[in-house]
């Protein structure tokens, strides 16, 4: 079989060859294999695109037309309150716009082998969660007479999270230049240094104490361990891919974020492109719509084509178009025309819209042919 298939190496994509290998019954004659491969090749070549096909507009239509059928709703995660995911049309718009701040950033963290079996999964999840001191505080008292603050700590919780006293003291002392902290059993005592003992200063510290960051990964505001097939993963609200990937128990090959920009900065543009394809596809799928992956790929390629994410907005891709009239026909025409006048831009009339404006044949489809005569 291999020897027969060798002849088709350049003619068929690897994926199809693999499929032939997989699905052909064992021990068939080589003439049968050849017959199969020929049939596949015929099917493959008869379904190739034709030159001139305006694939861009077809993809735009394929994504734009079902837009009216999508819902606007966000989707709530069962289990944890306050954790929902933007889905449907708003999410698609968000991705295609190339927004830097997305509405609901989240990650799916996969774990390496011993950790993904479910043992201690809660503890692992909690250790990732960004926590502030207030979660470990029971009570805060200001003692005006002695000018100090007495903070009652929840020692059980601290122990569970594995936070040492020393760490707390360190972060608390960072708050103000002239304060010292001490821990006795379950109480944290904060005093002011020096003679200049000011009550106002104390109040300021008291306010700040609650929102001190002490443990976990910054940006991860919620965690939710979930069983997926036969392993446990952690879903988070809020992302910080860079720090997460550095953790030793995280499977860095499978862990994903839904923030395309973040992926771009951590893993590069190719990863961002793939992430974009996956994210759009996910939305389309959950909406019960059917759009071929090729259209999504093309859109993502257009967005990532310049090596960085350029959204489908007047500031993104459209501003990169070489033609003045094409830009002007989209949005803010005056600005484009004025700027063009300053630098004496020349519109070569290569794209569709300018030729429509001038009543000339457009350079896609049957318009890409040129006839020369002498």
């Amino acid at each position, binding site marked *: 079989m291999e020897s027969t298939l060798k002849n088709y190496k350049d003619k068929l994509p690897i*994926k199809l060859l693999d499929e*032939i290998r997989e*699905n052909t019954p064992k021990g068939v004659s080589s003439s049968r294999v050849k017959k*199969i491969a020929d049939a*596949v090749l015929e*099917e493959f070549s008869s*379904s*190739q*695109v034709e*030159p*001139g*096909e*305006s*694939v861009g*507009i077809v993809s*735009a*239509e*394929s994504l*734009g037309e079902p*837009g*009216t059928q*999508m819902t606007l*709703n966000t989707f*709530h995660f069962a*289990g944890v*309150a306050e954790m929902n995911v933007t889905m449907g*049309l708003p999410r698609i*718009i968000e991705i*295609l716009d190339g927004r830097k701040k997305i509405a609901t950033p989240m990650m799916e963290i996969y774990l390496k082998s011993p950790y993904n079996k479910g043992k201690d999964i809660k503890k692992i999840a909690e250790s990732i969660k960004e926590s502030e001191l207030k979660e470990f505080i029971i009570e805060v008292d200001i003692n005006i007479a002695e000018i100090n603050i007495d903070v009652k700590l929840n020692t059980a919780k601290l122990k569970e999270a594995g936070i040492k006293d020393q760490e707390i003291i360190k972060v608390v002392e960072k708050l103000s230049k002239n304060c010292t902290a001490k821990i006795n059993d379950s109480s944290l005592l904060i005093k002011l240094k020096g003679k200049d003992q000011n009550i106002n200063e104390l109040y300021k510290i008291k306010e700040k104490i609650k929102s001190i960051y002490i443990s976990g990964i910054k940006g991860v505001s919620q965690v939710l361990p979930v069983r997926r097939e036969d392993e446990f993963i952690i879903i988070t609200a809020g992302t910080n891919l860079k720090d997460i990937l550095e953790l030793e128990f995280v499977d860095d090959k499978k862990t994903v974020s839904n923030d395309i920009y973040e992926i771009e900065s951590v893993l590069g543009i190719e990863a961002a492109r793939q992430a974009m394809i996956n994210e759009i596809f996910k939305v389309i799928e959950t909406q019960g719509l059917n*759009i*071929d*992956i*090729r259209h999504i790929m*093309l859109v993502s390629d*257009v967005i990532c*084509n310049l090596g960085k994410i350029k959204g*489908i*907005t007047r500031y*993104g891709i459209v501003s990169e*178009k*070489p033609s003045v009239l*094409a830009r002007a026909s*989209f949005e803010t025409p*005056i600005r484009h*025309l004025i700027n063009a*006048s*300053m*630098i*004496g*831009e*020349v*519109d*070569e009339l290569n*794209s569709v819209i*300018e030729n429509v404006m*001038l*009543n*000339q044949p457009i350079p896609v489809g*049957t318009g*890409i042919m040129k006839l020369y005569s002498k």
Partner: protein
Amino acid sequence: MEENLPIYKKVKAISFGKISPKLIRKMASVKIVTPELYDREGYPVDGGLMDIRMGVIDPGLKCKTCGSKLKECIGHFGYVELARPVIHISYAKLILDILRKICRDCGVVLGEKLKPEEDAKEKKVDVLDAKKASARAPKTGVKCQSCNAKQFKIIIEKPTSYFEDGKRLSPIEVRTRLERLRDDDLPKLGLNPKVFRPEWTVLTLLAIPPVTIRPSITLESGERSEDDLTHKLGDIVRINQRLFENINAGAPEIIIEDLWDLLQYHVTTFFDNAVPQLPPARHRSGQPLKTITERIKSKEGRIRHNLAGKRTNFSARTVISPDSMLDLNEVGIPKQVAMKLTVPERATKWNMDFLKKFIEKGPKEYPGANYVVRPDGRKKKISDETKEQLLEELQPGYIVERHIMDGDISIFNRQPSLHRMSMMCHKIRVLPGLTFRLNPAVCAPYNADFDGDEMNLHIPQSEEARAEAEILMMVHTQLISPRYGLSIIGCNMDAISGNYILTKHMSIPKEEAVQLLASIGVDDFKRLPDKETVTGKEVFSVILPEDFSFTGKTREGNPVKIEKGKIKEGFMDKANLGEGHGLMLRNIHKNYGAKEALDILGKIFRLGIRTLQINGLTAALSDTDLTQKGKESVEKILADAKEVVNKLIDDYHNHKLDAFPGRSVEETLELKILETLNKARNNAGKIVQETVDKSKHTSIIIDSGAKGNVISMAQMAAIVGQQALRGKRMEKGYEDRTLSCFEKNDLSPKARGFVENSFKKGLTPYEFFFMSQTGRDSLMDTALRTPKSGYLYRRLANSMQDLKVAYDKTVRDASEKIVQFKYGGDGIDVSKSEGGIVNVKKIIESTR
């Protein structure tokens, strides 16, 4: 005018630049000196804004510049000499940038290290980013590197006043500074000296647009109403004259300044009447003037309305109605339309007699002709008077615009044209009646129905256009959606239920079968078995190709087997005939080609409808009757569910309910209630499905997949179910309750939107209100979504329209930049494949 001529001139490129004052003077045909428009006789004043040297807008007058008449003269510019220079508003920001960047004394670009040549090359023309460089405004105290002059801070007081160190810079001063800039330094500021000089942005001359772009309209009363631009220009010229007079009379500086500012205001609003800091110039009625910027901008502006969007002749629009006896690629048009729309046909030796017949009939008789076009391009209307003469005159080379007839090519369209299947090519069929007729099977791609929809029809006028329409846009070329690679055209509604009944239940006398087949356009009955009565399967099989074999499944998963063009097993339903899925149709399409598939589809469609006309199909009220047993079990399910819910509520009040992890007790209760009630509804649905009579027509409609589903049946027969708003039970309305007829904090199902009645039984008032609430919510959702998705679509289309597959199979954009090396990674065209994949398994099976 002459549509068959080749394009003899083509625009290769358009370059942009700013018109210099010199050029304004050169291209102007008149200097405007007076704000008056017409003299007492109503004749345009010389040197006024309507001077006929700038073109004519009155019939009968001749342009003094080019001598042409109305519509022939495209108009000529004029100019006004401004008494004092004014700032061009669109360049105000640029002027500020430049002022800040150059030396106030010598005009050298500040902060430049002295190797100008390299920099100039680097920053040349296309790398412009004036904004980026402008960020750093020189602070007071910086000294010029070449003349050592002290620089001051320059600020702009929007829109057009500049201040240096607290003192105002007059436009004259601004202009002289800009003049000092050398051409060599311009590229450093992102300017191209070949087409742009900074001082041109401070206007000394104002070009007056030709009258032809600002025509006045004559009202019924004989009064003239001038265009907005003319009004604005009148203001400019008037103030300008006053300013001149005051300067010449040596008026005090303060008056001149005031007039100067006023002139600046008028010139600014002439260019842009929506400058944030200025009050817009208004008509006497208070409505803002539409000046140059407003003319270009936005959806109704020149660019999007007139340049990117065009209007067309040879088109028609009317209401649509269905006619399944038409082929799928036909469109029925009323005679009235056929007599207005024409096809140009060139007379040759061979078709002279043919064309003469049309001319003889003239425009009032069908099929006739409306116009004859002579070879020199002159168009002659055919009328009773001209008929004889034209008949004699007709010779090869003439073009006759004859009425459209059966078989002519047309393009049919329904808005919104969201995808390419919204415009397809149909062949004309002239029919009695006043509506466009189309086969209901093509409703799906157009997304049309017949509740009053209107559609548009276009007649291509050139041979080239007709050929393209026929080859690329014909209905049968569009059977498969490029979105997901499955058929988008298939049977729907009656066609599905009809074939379902025919192939599942029916057997009819052979005579009737022949009748049936003849009525759908089959005339070969050889394949009908020679029996007294034939089954529906046998009748259906006659339509299929003789060597067609197919195995598939019905909607419910029962096998369907077709061998040698005969149904051996199973029956037809939506899975094999319908839109989207239509697996059997898809197979026919693949094996026998698009045209054949379309033809067979048309026949199948008609067969279904004919069957129903024989058999009848009625959705009766009694179809949804439940048996006594069924009724009882539904009631029991309901009662059980209510009990469970009541217990949950009691538990909650007694604090016995345990919360789900991460949820509050209230949320847990809600979730549990919702789950219980939904389960009850589903169980009731199951009961309905089990007990309802399958031979009843409503069931047939649902089972065949023609319309509706089991849930809608259950809602009619047993119970409507919980109404949900944003994924929760109803909870808002009055204080602590949904409606005022309930007690406060009532958590019971009925107080929170559970509709326990069926549609047939009827809803209680509060149930009705809850249903209206969810109904309105979904209406809102639709209304809010449409514009959003429309905008997304526009952006997508705009940024991707230039992408095409090049001859080397790469995907490239307008400037031939590669976007993908191979379309989709493998070069497969979705609309030519099955769901975008090459199905290897199937191929292996078929090569057996």
